[in-house]
């Protein structure tokens, strides 16, 4: 199959080829999602080198375990980003890294804007704006707990210690914050 033909396939169709060890199909999947994957890893990890390591581990895992992708459980993009997230958390906890300045800066996402040079990029740019807005509208303590948990890789127990709050309080903030975020995104029509 030519590169142009592959590029016209949906992610799910490409994953069927990846499952059969087609490196050209994998290259298209990488091309589509490496930016989002690296951006997430960069946000979570303390150094660009560590972000590259996490991204590399995640994509090689996608290549080697493509068979595990189940389209009923979400998009390829969400699946890839979920793997990046797990790998980043593993790396942070393994390294006992405690210097994670990016995780404590919920506004870091605003520092760079996406180039909206294609229709797809424009849609993603809109989605990014919607998600940031929804996060901004959360009560500060809920948004802070979510950012520390998801981007900082901290457990609810660690967050409770950091913020000198009972663990139950932090669990509650995470739960209420996520539920509000979910409802807000649903009302805006965002479905990753």
């Amino acid at each position, binding site marked *: 199959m030519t590169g142009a033909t592959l590029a016209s396939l949906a992610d799910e169709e490409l994953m069927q080829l990846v499952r059969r060890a*087609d490196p050209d199909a994998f290259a298209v999947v990488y091309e589509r999602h490496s*930016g989002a994957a690296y951006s*997430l890893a960069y946000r979570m990890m303390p150094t660009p080198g560590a972000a590259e390591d996490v991204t*590399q581990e995640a994509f090689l895992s996608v290549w*080697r375990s493509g068979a*595990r992708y189940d389209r009923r459980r979400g998009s390829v993009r969400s699946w890839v*980003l979920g793997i990046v997230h797990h790998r980043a958390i593993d790396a942070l906890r393994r390294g006992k890294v405690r210097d994670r300045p990016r995780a404590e800066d919920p506004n870091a996402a605003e520092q760079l804007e996406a180039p909206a040079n294609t229709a797809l990029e424009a849609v993603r740019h809109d*989605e990014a704006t*919607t998600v940031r807005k929804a996060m901004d509208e959360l009560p500060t303590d809920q948004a802070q707990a979510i950012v520390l948990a998801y981007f900082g890789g901290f457990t609810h127990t660690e967050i409770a210690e950091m913020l000198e709050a009972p663990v139950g309080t932090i669990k509650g903030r995470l739960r209420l914050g*996520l539920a509000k975020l979910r409802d807000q995104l649903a009302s805006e029509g965002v479905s990753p």
Partner: protein
Amino acid sequence: VSAPGHDTWADAVASYALGALPEAEVIAFEQHLAACGACRAELEHLSVAVAALPASVAPRPAPPALGDRIMADVRREAELLHAAGPAADRLPRRPARQHRRWTRAPRWAVPAAVTAALAVGFAAGALVRTGDERVVPVATTEAVRGTHARLLLGDDHATLVADHLPAPPAGRIYQVWLKPRDGEPEPTSALFVPRADGTATVALPARAADMELVMVSAEPPGGSAAPTTPPVLSARPRS
């Protein structure tokens, strides 16, 4: 429908969805999750919000050299897998009359190409440690494409867990083999077929953890003294 213990775990769903549940609690929570429809429903609900979070991150293109490194690994492995693919695909589909040739084979007769394919699979993931158990990835061949399997190895127990595992060919069952370093594969009494939904949970001898290879092949009912078909699943507990 909520399961016993729901009140204990209900407020852990969001932490779990965010990856913020302490590692020591994850296994117990997942056991509860498996039994609790209410928690599964909430997890599904909240996961939509979690999946949206990466979209809020400042975009940053991946360095070109990173893509070059990844694609170099991928193309190298693809070459190995393609060399192995036809053999791995063909063998389990042999007509029954050809099967006798395999049953007479006195020794472990895995085509080199299949071994290569499995070797690539082994690179799939480093060992993962969860609680007191080691989790070892299991390599699969084309014959059971789509299967996801792993070994769970504890001090005094070993379990093979699989999902999306197709049923063995008609008139066969799966048998687990333990191959020690420098030795031939030894039969075990671990004979099984996957459940209707493709899942399987198989108790293995604890010494599986010390083996060079743990393998699964399709065998006649009652099992074989030596493997008669190439393995469809294989794991290296010691690597």
